[in-house]
């Protein structure tokens, strides 16, 4: 089966993105039939691949690697421009030279999640059995599956222990999963704006999004790639609904209020009279170019299935028994998608497990998205935590690194 991708209704951005699914611009680790990925569903994925970027330099004893885990619609381009949109890396405020996750000091790895659409095996990838995109033939993916895939990448890169695993939202779920399932390989962990399970309310919002995608006639029962179509409207609506959950009532109100969009009075019609409507429509439409609709279904499902305690007799503390990982848990006051109570449940479980844990609730009006935005308190917290952890791990600071070559020169 060949896909009539040449059909003229695909714009350049979308064509670019579809090409990235199999042949990403970033480095990619390919695993053959001899290195299958065992999935929680019982299915086996082989061959499969994981696309990633790195930044900074791995030190001689391989002790300074930091894994950054991205959120639902993120990607591996944490510090470098996204090849599809051309936009700068998604977390350059947090990661980079002199930033809290300092690439002058740490070797940063960020991989596209399993089920994603920018180079790691996902529903948009070509199924080697058929030569056509997997679409809904891809087995269901879970957060532990994503982490298992990352662990195999880390093995491939020759790294035994990660100095830190850090991420927000779904990235934070992966951080917790790393700590629960690969504790000895995680020296420190920074789960931000996240929880150890997806709440009923969160599942509800995801279901609305999935139903919006599947209600779009262009979804074609999931076979839109093979049929040269794209359920843009459904995916845009899913994104619009989700975007509301990333903000807060307060931030929406202060940003948009009831302001009208390019007009003095309401039109008595269904155009985007209000700025907030126009904003959401823009968010929806710009999202569909860079994201695959089936990926959205798979990855939201993975979040819904996430519940660490359920695998440990409903006692979260048991998941972290004997852990030696140092944790820094961060939440935001106005985040109603992953409210502070979810973070506190994690903190209490870690305390009960005798873990080394710090916890900060950042006062911010920006809602869930705060972790991606300018939040000086969050940066100070993560910076301080990583400095303390690096000291404990014996990773030299940037000043010491700068001195080292000078000493060598003096000795030579």
């Amino acid at each position, binding site marked *: 089966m060949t896909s009539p991708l040449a059909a003229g209704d695909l714009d350049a951005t979308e064509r670019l993105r579809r090409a990235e699914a199999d042949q990403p611009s970033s480095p990619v680790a390919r695993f053959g039939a001899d290195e299958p990925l065992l999935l929680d569903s019982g299915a086996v994925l082989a061959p499969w691949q994981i696309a990633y970027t790195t930044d900074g330099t791995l030190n001689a004893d391989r002790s300074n690697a930091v894994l950054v885990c991205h959120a639902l619609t993120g990607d591996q381009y944490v510090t470098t421009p996204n090849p599809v949109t051309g936009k700068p890396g998604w977390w350059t405020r947090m990661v980079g030279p002199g930033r809290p996750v300092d690439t002058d000091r740490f070797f940063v790895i960020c991989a596209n999640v399993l089920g994603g659409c920018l180079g790691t095996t996902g529903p948009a990838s070509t199924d080697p059995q058929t030569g056509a995109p997997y679409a809904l033939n891809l087995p269901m993916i879970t957060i532990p599956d994503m982490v298992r895939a990352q662990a195999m990448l880390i093995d491939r890169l020759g790294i035994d222990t990660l100095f830190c695993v850090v991420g927000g939202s779904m990235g934070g779920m992966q951080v917790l999963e790393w700590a629960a399932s690969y504790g000895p390989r995680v020296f420190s962990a920074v789960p931000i704006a996240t929880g150890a399970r997806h709440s009923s309310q969160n599942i509800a919002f995801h279901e609305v999004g999935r139903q919006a995608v599947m209600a779009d006639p262009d979804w074609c029962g999931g076979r839109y790639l093979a049929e040269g179509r794209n359920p843009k409207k459904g995916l845009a609506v899913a994104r619009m609904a989700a975007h509301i959950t990333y903000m807060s009532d307060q931030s929406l109100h202060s940003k948009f209020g009831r302001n009208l969009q390019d007009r003095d009075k309401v039109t008595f019609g269904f155009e985007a009279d209000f700025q907030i409507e126009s904003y959401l429509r823009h968010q929806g439409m710009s999202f569909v170019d860079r994201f695959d609709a089936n990926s959205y279904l798979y990855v939201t499902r993975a979040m819904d299935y996430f519940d660490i305690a359920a695998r440990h007799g409903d006692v979260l503390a048991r998941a972290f028994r004997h852990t030696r990982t140092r944790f820094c848990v961060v939440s935001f006051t106005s985040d109603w998608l992953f409210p502070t109570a979810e973070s506190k449940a994690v903190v209490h479980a870690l*305390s*009960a497990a005798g873990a080394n*844990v*710090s*916890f*900060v*609730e950042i006062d911010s009006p920006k809602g869930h998205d705060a972790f991606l935005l300018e939040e000086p308190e969050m940066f100070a917290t993560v910076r*301080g*935590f990583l400095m303390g952890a690096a000291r404990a791990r014996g990773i030299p600071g940037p000043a010491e690194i700068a001195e080292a070559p000078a000493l060598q020169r003096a000795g030579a």
Partner: protein
Amino acid sequence: MIRSSEPVRVDLKVVAELVHQGARVLDVGCGEGELLEYLAEERGVDGRGIEISQAGVNACVARGLSVIQGDADRDLGYYPDLAFDYAILSQTIQATHAPKHVLGELLRIGNKAIVSFPNFGHWDVRMRLLFGGRMPVSEKLPYSWHDTPNIHFCTIRDFVSLCDEIGARVEKAVALNGSGARVPFNMPWSWWNLFGQQAVFLLSRKE
């Protein structure tokens, strides 16, 4: 941050002397982490903290300490028995809602408990009450009665009888006078209660 060149609060020193090298320590109400940092430097402790104010917690984490935002009255129950060698309540017991409960929790979580507090039986407090007729406000007790986190002041004698009541053994006690010097240990409790401005107790469970 407290640097070694700066004078260290004498009550921190007293606490540090009660803690053994490399101990596991929980500091309940750790403020901005002065004590935890001092104990890490001086005693190499594996320290954790609980602090109610966000500003305090942020300051602690930013200086590399392991501290969670929480409440002594509510959040101690999450810790398992004997999770720490020492559970410390430094200048905090007077701000808890249920001092008796908190003290019991300290002795459950920690093998030993260290409690330091301002002594409301100090002669200066008594004089202000006797002659001023008003709740004392001083450098050490800077809040007005209506706007203070300190809701459960006690005297050294009150504290000793509370220890008795909950079955805590006083292993060591130190009282500091207004200028930070130790009140001689061979004096009777009544003397300590009059001249100790601050007190530091090392407690254990009676078997």
